[in-house]
């Protein structure tokens, strides 16, 4: 099939692509976006999460045919090492990163959660990030980082 997608605001067109190709493979193998990780390949661990039109999607169980014409966001699209996104800064500040393998997915969830509702509570964040597994941090710093970002967004909104 012919495929057009927008990844991190950049348009990509593929003349001929297997519609059953997994989104994760397209992103990693064809586009070199390696922040999208592979952890289980059956949709359980969540480290392959990307935002498709703003909504978390597991790229390891999503065929590319489902994202034709859609906007995809990965952490590379949020910020860069020189200019990290505030949420990324909060992840650093709150030590929400250890081995880093789940981090991109957690950040995208955080971005999605706060975008949806900046008034989100810690308990809500806890539930909402549960689709992504982390084995290092015990989740607490991740929840704190997302909450801090939510508060930051609120403060900015109020200004």
């Amino acid at each position, binding site marked *: 099939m012919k495929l057009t997608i927008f990844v991190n605001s950049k348009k990509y067109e593929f003349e001929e692509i297997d519609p059953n190709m997994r989104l994760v493979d397209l992103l990693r193998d064809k586009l070199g976006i390696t922040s999208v990780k*592979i952890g289980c390949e059956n949709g359980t661990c969540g*480290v392959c999460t990307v935002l498709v039109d703003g909504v978390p999607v597991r790229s390891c169980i999503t065929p590319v045919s489902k994202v034709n014409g859609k906007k995809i966001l990965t952490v590379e699209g949020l910020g860069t090492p020189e200019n990290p996104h505030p949420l990324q800064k909060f992840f650093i500040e709150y*030590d929400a990163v250890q*081995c880093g393998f789940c981090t991109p997915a957690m950040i995208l969830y955080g971005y999605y959660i706060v975008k949806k509702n900046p008034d989100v509570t810690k308990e809500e964040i806890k539930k909402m990030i549960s689709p992504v597994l982390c084995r*290092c*941090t015990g989740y607490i710093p991740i929840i704190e980082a997302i909450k801090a970002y939510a508060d930051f967004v609120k403060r900015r909104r109020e200004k």
Partner: protein
Amino acid sequence: MSKVIVKEKERVLNVVGHPVNRVDALAKVTGTAKFTADYYVPNMLYAVVKHADIPHGYIKKIDTSEAEKVEGVVKIATGKDIPGVKKVGFPIPDEEVIVQEKVRYIGDVVAIVAAETLEAARKAAEKIKVEYDPLPVVLDPEEAMKEDAPKIHDSGNIITHFKIRKGDVEKGFKEADYVIEREYRTQFIEHSYLEPVAALAIPVGDMIEIYGTVQNPHNARRITSLTLGIPMHKVRVIQPALGGSFGGKDDTANFVAARAALMAKLTGRPVKMVYTREQDMRESYKRHPYIMRYKVGFTKDGRITAMEIKVITNAGAYSSSSPLVLYRSTVQCTGTYEVPNIKGDFYTVYTNTVFSGAMRGFGAPQINFAVESLMDEIAEILGMDPVEIRLKNAYKEGSVTPTGQVLKGHVVSIRDIIKKLAEIADWKKKREEYSKDKGDVRRGIGISCAFRGVSLGAEGADYAGAIVEVFEDGHISITSGISEMGQGAKTVMSQTAAEVLGVPIEYVTFVGPDTSFSPDSGPTVASRGTLMGCGAVKVAAEVVKERMAKYAAKLFNTTYENIVFENGYVYSKKNPENKISFPELAKKCYLDRVNLSAVGWFLAPEIHWDPETGEGEPYFTYTYYADIAEVEVNVKTGDVKVKKVYAMHDPGKVVNPKTAKGQVYGGVAMGIGYALKEEYKIDGKGYPITLNFDKYQIVRAHEMPDVEVYFLENPDPSGPFGAKSLGEPAFDTVAPAITNAIAHATGVRVRSLPATKDKILKLLKEKEERR
């Protein structure tokens, strides 16, 4: 929340002890950190393994003819293609990178396919046909110990038998008012690092360069060098970002590296091998299941007089680090309590299950589960408070451990920790209050504490090296064989260099590990990274500092002892106003050709241990810690919710409170899984059931309780800035605190992990029936 309790006033530190951000966080949050599978090189082949089809049997024939017909297949290798040593492994070389004659568990690799595409490699691997002569399968270690059990290795099924003989147990039991016998069991645990094992091997001339998910690059180098039959300097192992390890990326990950290297050597092309979760869980080693039988004598007032212990651990198909894991269980067999009379026999045994090896805790969590459950059971029999009975028996300065080691030279802080933590958790009040709960949901509070021998102990030579270099512009690079796997090793080592040289941490960059230049530092295991890595960095930085100080002394017309390095400046104590910036001094030294690079070497104090009698000093120092857990148990459904965990640790010195706290949080999460959920299951015939996260469930965010972390600092004379261990203690004793809390809430005791709702319900039902 977390808090560091500093006992005494000490030297002011500027970087060490401060909550510095992780040095590798920026790369990780922006997705620019590269993990092994993120490397792509041109002309690369993909390799896939073919695993054994049966758990035990001789290989009669491997037929690759159909597989070879798959388009894109470049090479299929079997054990015969290994040019070097066939059997590897440490300390006992009984493992095979590709099995040649006999399969011993379902995760043995019998062949490897390298192909132009991943699809082709997978397809071909499926078409490899192996004919076997099946052998009887033994899965239970106690069965395996029997004379007539099928032999898994020629050497017999008992790999190691350690003994502890201290005092006279018969006498001890006579002195006791009560003698009880209990059996405790624990399960197989999967490390569940989120990044499956992988390796990329690239032939460069007559060398092989490997990027791998290896916890210990120097071990991967050794295994690859042995497998390929080439000297170590022809193998270069580079460790990219490592997506979690917890002890799990040693043996198996090294084999994956060696296999990729073998295929690269055989094809002359780069070879990438990335395991699927299923392949990883099928093949990779696990935490040992333990069977622990304790016979304990104690007096009416709660004093333990004797223990007779038998421990059997299931090593599975290969020995891996089982003897070393057993060693730790042996020397810590009474937990953190002084027992005058001990007779202990400890066995680790081959079976046809997946093999067991190193995992965070390394033989301690199982023992802690048994001993800490036991203490609560004794308290219950005597009607004592669990805190009381612990204080009664816990180690103090001068106590004698099961191996006869007298605890001295460091602060034996366990009693202090128990008291302080109980106070913080409001133990007494809650203990009473929760006992009164009557409804479906009942609350409970439990305590558990432990001690732990720091670093490798008599497990092996305990050394680490580091290189520190100051550049012309005053920035600093450091490297060591101690590796980062998320625990924050790079950060604390960077802090150490910054502290010694008196500069902000931003000046420091950690490079590697890369076996071509990072000094072999022994493995990054046994919670030794901070102690040994920072120790080596400190030594190297001090050498460079001295050279710079001598140069600065000339500038300031004084002696070098007077020179102070602080906050990016250098000055003489005599005249602190007259400063020079660190970069300026570096530049001056550079222009005058002063050597600003040094190797630091850190050697742990000498120790010795006799495996026959179990006597000696197995570790040079110990660390102490306790956890208190609060749970809610629904007695109708058996559901357990952990509501709160209080953790207190004495890691000597907290080098970085931020990352240290993170270690404890992570340890608690893993401990909850160990206590309540996780179990790697194998069916009655030796086939694993739980091969992915849908069946093998680890703790998710919504299951996490509030966690309060406290650090009680008692700087240890043997560690850099007084630091010792934290990584494993963070996990070690969480599970028994939870099962003790469950017992408090429900009145029933689960003696085999995990404490699933089915087990709890069954026990409640039995209790009901007894009534």
